């Protein structure tokens, strides 16, 4: 009994330690800060720019903190966001801090820590951070908040989200066409395609809604297998789910799973089958196994919001919705796959996708949204 109690206590202690996480992440952002210092000097040297003037108002560079729901190094969503932030460091000489964390407790603790540190701008990198921003932003009215990938309606929060349903529509259409190309190695006769997500959050359902609609637009009889790993950083789970879908007849699986995604792409490579990348251009992560990637310009979103603070155009309570037409989402140019498949590469998929993209932009095809998403959400 005593032993059991001590196990529980030790477990609690462990949790509480994890919850005090942010200090562990300092290493990560240190290098970023160093670049910041260099960039600040560069900006000072340049002088005259509006951004420099704005920065001087608050005695020093603008301080930005990004709270991630997951770790950097996912070669996907988070890395894309970080790329935008680093670009902003270079262009505007801001001071940047990145707080990573893998559990909801850490995300909340990181956000509170960021609020207490008095940053000028705090960015919640994903929809996982929205609830916490909703909870704490009213307590810190002087801090500017931004949230990417979802909407938080508060006077000091700017929201930027994406029409991932439109990009996923194209990905779904591409997958539905690809699964019929039985002359390509590994592609079977079954009209089955797969989809593996990270955590079961609403934004992923917006992805799936578009993916399903796109696939069914090409072939109403197609079967789509769906699975969630329940984590943003368990590639082994992602791999297992993907292999399961391959064994159930899928020959192409879309990855929508951040840090869980590398496992999905690895499963494609090992099985000699195919995947679709997400967020960043992942075509080269497992070259020859990734048909295309649904690129979501999280880097642009992050950069834009920092720019708005630097230039003083930050507008709390506003929402930006980046669509296919704005270049917020898109498919890659299939070039890596074209190289690998050579003559067998199905050019008609690319042509059809371009055509569909144009139809979506022109409003001829209306891609459905998951509840709570879309331009007016």
């Amino acid at each position: 009994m005593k032993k059991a109690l001590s196990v529980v206590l030790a477990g609690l202690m462990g949790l509480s330690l994890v919850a005090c996480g942010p200090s562990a992440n300092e290493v990560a952002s240190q290098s970023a800060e160093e670049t910041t210092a260099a960039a600040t000097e560069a900006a000072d040297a340049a002088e005259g720019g509006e951004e420099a003037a704005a920065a001087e108002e608050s005695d020093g560079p603008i301080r930005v903190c990004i709270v991630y729901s997951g770790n950097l190094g996912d070669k996907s969503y988070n890395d894309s966001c970080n790329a935008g932030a680093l670009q902003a460091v270079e262009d505007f000489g801001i001071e940047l801090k990145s707080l990573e964390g893998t559990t909801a407790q850490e995300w909340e603790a990181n956000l509170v820590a960021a609020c207490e540190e008095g940053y000028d701008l705090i960015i919640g990198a994903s929809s996982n951070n929205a609830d916490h921003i909703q909870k704490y932003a009213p307590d810190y009215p002087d801090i500017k908040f931004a949230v990417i990938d979802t909407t938080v309606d508060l006077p000091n929060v700017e929201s930027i989200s994406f029409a991932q349903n439109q990009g996923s529509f194209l990905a779904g259409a591409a997958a539905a066409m690809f699964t019929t190309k039985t002359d390509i190695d590994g592609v079977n006769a079954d009209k089955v395609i797969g989809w593996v997500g990270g955590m079961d959050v609403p934004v992923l359902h917006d992805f799936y809604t578009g993916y399903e609609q796109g696939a069914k637009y090409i072939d109403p009889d197609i079967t789509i297998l769906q699975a969630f790993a329940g984590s943003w950083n368990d590639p082994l789970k992602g791999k297992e789910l993907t292999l399961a879908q391959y064994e159930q007849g899928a020959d192409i699986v879309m990855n929508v799973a951040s840090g869980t995604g590398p496992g999905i792409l690895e499963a494609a490579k090992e099985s000699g089958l195919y995947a679709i990348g997400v967020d960043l251009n992942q075509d080269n992560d497992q070259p020859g196994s990734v048909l295309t990637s649904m690129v979501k310009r999280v880097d642009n979103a992050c950069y834009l919001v920092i720019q708005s603070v630097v230039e003083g155009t930050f507008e709390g309570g506003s929402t930006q919705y980046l669509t296919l037409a704005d270049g917020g989402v898109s498919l890659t140019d299939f070039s890596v796959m074209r190289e690998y498949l050579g003559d067998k590469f199905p050019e008609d998929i690319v042509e059809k996708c371009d055509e569909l993209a144009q139809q979506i932009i022109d409003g001829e095809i209306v891609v459905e949204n998951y509840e709570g998403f879309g331009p007016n959400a």
Partner: protein
Amino acid sequence: MDVFESLGKIFNVSLIYATFRASTPIIYAALCAAVTQQANILNVGTEGIMLVGAFTAVAVSFLTGSWILGVLAAMCGGAVIATIMAIGHIKYNSEICAIGMGINLFAIAITKFLLQVIFNTSGSFSDPGIDPIPTVHFAFLENIPVLNGLLNDWAFTEWFVIVFIIILQFLFYKTVWGLRLRAVGQFPMAAQTAGINVNAIKYQAILISGLVGGLAGAHLSLGYSTQFVENMTNNRGFMGVAAMYFGGANPALTAVGCLLFGFSDSVGARLQAYGFPAQFVLMMPYLVTIVVLAVSMAIKVAASKKKESSLITG
């Protein structure tokens, strides 16, 4: 789609290998915990030992280009971490749970740190330069339809785990060392009286456990996949500890417990594709953990009660 056709797609031959594939990392973890459990030391640090092993395996395999060196280094890495735990627990008498949790947290931090220092990257590391554990291919099976899919192209460590279970079973129950180990675990005073150096046996148990845990990590990062990701063990170490309890630290029974986890995981992966709520399916391995532990504990309690009553009447 027809119900039977769907069931056929969920429960088919590939499920057997999928179960084994998902179980293997947990089996290694459980064996890591079983070695110390025989000496009555609860190895809470399994998770941390595995994580260090996983990192070391990838790092050494990448730097030397040899998976064998990677695996050996991972085992050494696991042993080093285990030694820290052993010294803390045996020499300085610290509570094993506290130091075990400490090891787990330390492992997450040190691997994250080294990932930055050595590979200058954060989050994950994958590179074609990492030499994975090879798969075993039997040419003679190629023409046998079912067995080919079932038994071919397993990772070397997936076959080895079967051998390893037998080795440990033999070691625990058929050798002098095993007898001493169990004596230390069950009644250290008696063992001491019999002239066994209790502390030496405990050190040996933890050290061997470290070697096994390192191997578990190496399988995770070089066999099951070919990459290192921060905190990639994702509680597989703890599931191993739970399975070890289920099997009462008996390697074969422990492995059965692990297969149960692997099975629930693999069935879950297939069920999700047919619209079962992800939240429920993802809960299954943990639900199974609780049920399995409850059942095994109930059996144990019943058995010990029976023993007591027979002592009194006898």
